[in-house]
């Protein structure tokens, strides 16, 4: 089962990757795209510029962001024993969002590093708040609601900040807040890639304790897991992945929530040994697909990402909830 899932996703990833490079306001044939990528292209400079400076970074950004958010979502779902947890549901994206808003409105978007750090701090603060409540509130549904409330609080602080900020800063922030894979230039890409790959590597190292946590904290402890340490590591990983994606692409909903479900349904198992890599690949594919769908043929404007991700994500969640009696990992 897992071989088929890997193969299907790898194939989809390759197809979507090249589709992302070919498809756009201007249609550039695959042959030219390949030549541009391999440096043997001797055609129009404009096409070369579009592919290398615009489409390639957007595609790679989508790939990294999708993988990061999906893996964050999976880890949160396992940690909080709740299949409806996710970075945007638990308010972690909103925390990162608030961090970015503060840095943009008060310090200007001077350097990416400031923005990244602000997002990471924002994500970390919300994670700590959720973690603190998770000790007080035993019901996971209640915890989820607390996460949603924290998210609303962060959003309302952002609105208040916006009210007091100058118009151009607000505009800059609002544009960012729509969510966008195309805002990362080739020069900024290494920053995103560095943090993102570090977080993903960390997640792969947590596969063993994540599996033990499926049995609950008592069983995990009895198997020799240092649960407190595992929890902190998982949250740090999640914070880095969500924070960095939010810093570069703005808040992106549904990928972290829905993709782990797509991966479980595809794989037929909740064993993280395969589920985590499959979630990673499925996240990359889903985000690439969303990124492609933001392109309006014949127009230079992109649809906002926040308009596309729910179209893919919401039906998945509804399907999963309606069929939860027949889906094994709910029981």
């Amino acid at each position, binding site marked *: 089962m897992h071989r088929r899932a890997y193969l299907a996703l790898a194939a989809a990833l390759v197809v979507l990757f090249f589709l992302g490079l070919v498809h756009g306001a201007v249609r550039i044939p695959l042959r030219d795209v390949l030549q541009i990528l391999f440096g043997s292209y001797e055609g129009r400079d404009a096409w070369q510029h579009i592919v290398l400076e615009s489409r390639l970074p957007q595609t790679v950004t989508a790939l990294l962001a999708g993988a990061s958010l999906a893996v964050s979502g999976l880890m949160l779902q*396992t940690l909080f*024993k709740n299949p409806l947890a996710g970075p945007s549901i638990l308010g972690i994206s909103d925390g990162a969002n608030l961090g970015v808003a503060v840095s943009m409105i008060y310090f200007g978007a001077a350097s990416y590093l400031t923005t990244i750090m602000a997002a990471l701090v924002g994500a970390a603060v919300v994670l700590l708040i959720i973690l603190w409540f998770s000790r007080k509130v035993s019901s996971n549904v209640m915890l989820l609601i607390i996460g949603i409330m924290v998210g609303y609080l962060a959003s309302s602080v952002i609105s208040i900040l916006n009210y007091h900020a100058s118009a151009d800063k607000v505009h800059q922030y609002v544009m960012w807040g729509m969510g966008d894979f195309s805002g990362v230039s080739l020069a900024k890409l290494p920053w995103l890639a560095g943090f993102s790959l570090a977080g993903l590597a960390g997640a792969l*190292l947590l*596969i*063993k304790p994540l*599996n*033990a946590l*499926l*049995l*609950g904290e*008592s*069983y995990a*402890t*009895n*198997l*020799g*897991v*240092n649960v407190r340490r595992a929890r902190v590591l998982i949250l740090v990983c999640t914070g880095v992945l969500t924070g960095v994606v939010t810093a570069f692409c703005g808040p992106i909903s549904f990928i972290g929530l829905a993709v782990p479900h797509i991966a*479980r349904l595809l794989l037929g*198992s*909740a*064993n993280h*040994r395969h589920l985590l890599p499959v979630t990673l690949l499925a996240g990359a594919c889903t985000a690439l697909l969303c990124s492609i769908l933001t392109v309006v043929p014949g127009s230079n404007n992109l649809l906002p990402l926040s308009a596309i991700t729910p179209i893919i994500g919401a039906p998945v969640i509804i399907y999963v909830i309606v069929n939860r009696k027949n*889906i*094994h*990992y*709910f*029981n």
Partner: protein
Amino acid sequence: MDRSPVIETRSLCIGYTGRGGRRTVHPGIDVRLFPGELTCLMGRNGAGKSTLLKTLCGLLPALGGEVRIEGRALGSYSPEQLAARIGVVLTERTQAGGISVYDLVSLGRYPHTGFFGTLREEDHAAVRAALETAGIAHKAGCHVAELSDGERQKAFIAKVLAQECPIILLDEPTAFLDVTSRLETMLSLRRLAHERNKAVLLSTHDLDVALQTADRLWLQPACPSDGTPDAGLAGPMVCGTPETLIADGSLERFFGGESIRFDPVSRRLVSRNDR
């Protein structure tokens, strides 16, 4: 046979520490658990059987006194070392529905595998042996969620077998089982204790089956149910073989009530009115 206890407690005080301060469930517990024996822990609801089991394996901190595992203080073991000594089967809900029975039992190998949890051939062999012993090998490929309550219990017993610990603690392993499965489960745990020299301690409400299968009984008296639990009022644990406890009237004293008495001849609880 080795007759030194694998678990020994000295004036152990069990309970919880929470926002409302300490809540003692049972003070002054002195018990010894021996290898090669099936020991049944019995007591009324709320007597603290789960609390005792969780304290013995280090999942709850002791409020006082000490627990010694194979002669060493419980606290001196690292989590990994402890995981290789004591395995547990608990009553709590898990999220394991989406993994296969084989994967679940493989998690029992956790303390024995490396950083990535990759199973070597010897681990696979241990998993297969555990599945066979627990009588759940035919369901190895199923999801845990597809199992009946009895099968699920067997799967978790297989998990603890794969852990290959000399000490096994089980919290009400027969609670949701039908009559046949109850006796089967208890007999297989008893075989495990006898044939592999493991120390098996389990809590149960099933006096019938316990008297048939247990080598030793621990009777845990409840705190007075009215008012605040006063630590001093819970009586001492009564331990012994079923025969001794029947002969010296301990079972009658423990289970007997206003309308119920223990009948030593039929070895059952009967109504006083049927005399």
